[in-house]
């Protein structure tokens, strides 16, 4: 789709298409990795109930806190999504500077990553709140990680707000939101790394960094859970980007029709 913004339509092409329409379309096969996503996620759901054994330190001894397998991947993805969004935003700006082209694909990827970041952030907040209600006795405790995830949610929301406010001018919208994604990397970094460390937290901090802290049965479910969620993230992002491109193509076609019709 490198020629997204300059497709030249001429008469010959139109002729060709009308004959091509009669030929059968390429069939849809489920890609392997998408099928794998479905399988691994199903394994995680079954495993959360029948493989993982109870862990020490939970409110009720010997109970496998199953929400962990959904809460932790969501929370991790909500910060990874920002990095993905930042990466594509920065690439968009660099391309704009060096190649003097309008790399809209990177803008779409950045936006899709931010939207999914918002979604996973929301899921992490909800699952976390449920878990906190069971484990700590209150659904909201203003634990530093709880605070930072809410601010992170606000950050994603304001990115999407900035995009919505400029939706009439796609080129300006792409530039402004890319700049915001780059600048807001600073607060996002502080939210992900610094704030939970500066302030005292009730969250266990070494579960992921120190493998000795988790039992084998936990690892056997938790690590596939990460894989499943990352694959799901990639899938959703791919769908969203494709949707944006189709929408852009549709808008472009409508414009072409307008220009030829009202000549």
């Amino acid at each position, binding site marked *: 789709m490198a020629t997204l913004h300059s497709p030249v339509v001429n008469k010959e*092409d139109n002729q060709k298409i009308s004959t091509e329409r009669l030929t059968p379309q390429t069939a849809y096969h489920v890609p392997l990795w998408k099928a794998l996503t*479905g399988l691994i996620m199903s394994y995680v759901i079954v495993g959360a109930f029948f493989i993982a054994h109870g862990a020490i330190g939970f409110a009720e001894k010997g109970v496998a806190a199953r929400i962990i397998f959904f809460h932790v991947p969501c929370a991790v993805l909500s910060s990874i999504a920002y990095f993905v969004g930042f990466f594509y935003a920065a690439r968009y700006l660099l391309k704009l500077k060096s190649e003097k082209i309008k790399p809209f694909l990177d803008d779409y990827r950045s936006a899709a990553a931010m939207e999914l970041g918002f979604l996973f952030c929301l899921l992490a907040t909800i699952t976390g709140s449920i878990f906190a209600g069971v484990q700590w006795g209150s659904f909201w405790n203003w634990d530093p990680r709880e605070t930072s995830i809410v601010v992170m949610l606000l950050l994603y929301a304001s990115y999407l707000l900035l995009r919505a406010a400029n939706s009439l001018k796609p080129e300006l919208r792409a530039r402004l939101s890319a700049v915001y994604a780059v600048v807001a990397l600073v607060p996002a970094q502080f939210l992900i790394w610094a704030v939970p460390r500066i302030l005292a937290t009730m969250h266990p901090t070494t579960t992921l960094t120190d493998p000795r802290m988790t039992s084998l049965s936990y690892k056997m479910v938790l690590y596939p859970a990460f894989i499943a969620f990352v694959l799901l993230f990639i899938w959703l992002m791919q769908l969203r980007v494709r949707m944006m491109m189709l929408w852009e193509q549709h808008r472009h076609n409508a414009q072409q029709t307008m220009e030829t019709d009202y000549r």
Partner: protein
Amino acid sequence: MTHRMILMLVMAVPLVVWFGLFFYLLIIDRAMHRLENNQEGNDSI
């Protein structure tokens, strides 16, 4: 009802939700695949 059966029933809820989501995504994927194929050479709908 044994503990195991209760677990099975509880497990069924996320499993069913996930299957629903999975097939929903597959349907969208397939629809988009079709649209993209339609669009490839067709610039004047």
